[in-house]
């Protein structure tokens, strides 16, 4: 399925996956490419994610909240957003209030629960990219 071209600049939007569960990252890769994305990288630590996101400035970052290492996804989102404005979609296996509250305190464009449903993934990503497009238009 090809994304609505209204809010996609290049022919193939580029996505970055930050997820420490490698098989879930694989599924995401597959699903995102079916949605018309080219996945530039799938990494499993916050630091790698921050480095690639700020260098490559992808059109979408899908970010797991629980990650290997010191930093978690929420911290990574904060650092990425300080430097570049990219749509960020959180991914988590738990929907407890504390995590949601902590995530809410950062800027993000979508929230996905694992295991995700096909439609859910698509609409969440669409909404996230739309939000980014609106922000970009407001800045002009």
């Amino acid at each position, binding site marked *: 399925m090809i994304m609505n071209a209204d809010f996609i600049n290049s022919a193939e939007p580029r996505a970055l996956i930050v997820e420490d*569960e490698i*098989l*879930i990252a*694989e*599924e995401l890769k*597959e*699903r995102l490419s079916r949605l018309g994305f080219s996945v530039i990288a799938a990494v499993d630590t916050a630091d790698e994610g921050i480095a690639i996101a700020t260098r490559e400035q992808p059109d979408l970052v899908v970010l797991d909240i*629980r990650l290997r290492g010191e930093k978690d996804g929420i911290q990574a989102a904060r650092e990425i957003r300080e430097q570049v404005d990219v749509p960020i979609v959180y991914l988590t*296996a*738990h*929907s*407890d*209030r504390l995590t949601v509250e902590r995530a809410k305190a950062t800027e993000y464009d979508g929230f996905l*629960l*694992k*295991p995700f*449903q*096909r*439609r*859910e993934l698509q609409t969440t990503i669409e909404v996230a990219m739309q939000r980014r497009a609106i922000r970009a238009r407001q800045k002009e």
Partner: protein
Amino acid sequence: MSAPAASPDFFTPSPFTKRLAYAIMVGTVVTVGPFLLWPALAVLFFGPNDYLPHAFCYLRRPALVWTHVTADSLIGLAYLAISVTLAYLVYKARRDIPFHWIFLAFGLFIIACGGTHFMEVVTIWQPVYVFSAAVKIFTALASLMTAVVLPFNVPTILALAQRAKTSEQVTATLRASEERKEALLREVHHRVKNNLAVICSLFYLQSTHTRDEETVQMFRDMENRVHSMALVHERLYGSENLARIDFAEYAQALAQDILSAHGSPGPPVQLKSDLEPVIMGADLAVPCGLILNELISNAFKHGFPDSVGGEIRLTLRNGADGKCSLLVEDSGAGIPEDLDINRSKSLGLRLVRSLTQQIRGSFDLVRIDSRTSARLVFTVNDHER
């Protein structure tokens, strides 16, 4: 007929009441007894005499007289108030602090001290010095008794304080271990859910390696089944006690997920739900969730063949004695009339049948007008609620 609950009344007094009554009796005998035995005592105490009231000593100077009166009255009242508070404290804490004669000794000592100060006020105008002397002797005895008894009770009081401290420590340890247990349980639910998510990913990845629609559908069915199990753990993770979930909330979330999974391109299907809260443990919620998943998925697959759409109605009733019923209806084509649920070879129905057996429930299909209702009846045990 039920017998009235046994409670301590006048005829079966509690040990505390018994001791208090005993103390009051002794007190009355000690104070009234001497007057009864020796009536001349009253004359000696209160009869006319040649002594001069204290006011004479103070040369009836109002400033001095009233300073004494005020000070002594205040001291007396304060002593009285302290002993009343002490008595109230002992009464209130009678279940927590073991009754002890030391409290009574203290009370008596304080009241007596107050009495001597009140006597000071009286003797300013009335020279009842013999009675005043008697009150002083009584105070001296009470003070002496308390002074002697108190040191012997130091170990008991210290033990009491130690016990209070120990129980506080035990409470803190218990709370900490409770918190650790909770954190561990959360972690377990998170891990289980994460692993189930990985299984879903595996099914998905495998499904991308075939073009055969039927095979893809099989993997999707498996993914949905695992998803229905993962959802139980997600709910458990967010639940208060980490052991039970509200099946109404779960059913709503699952139905919505299945709805979004089946979404467009497909017939528009509305979800109508009327769910009463049913609290249950994970061992019941997992099979119930799997059954519900089959029923809703089945309604989607076979209920709406002619892209017109329709609605799926979910009803959950929480009846008496934990007997619950779950109804899944669809407004679509429904189930073939000649379908025998006990012989059907479809995996979905086989799963429903087996899982119903596992939860000791009953399952049947009802066809009213154009509506097909699948009904599951099961019981939530008391220990699970």
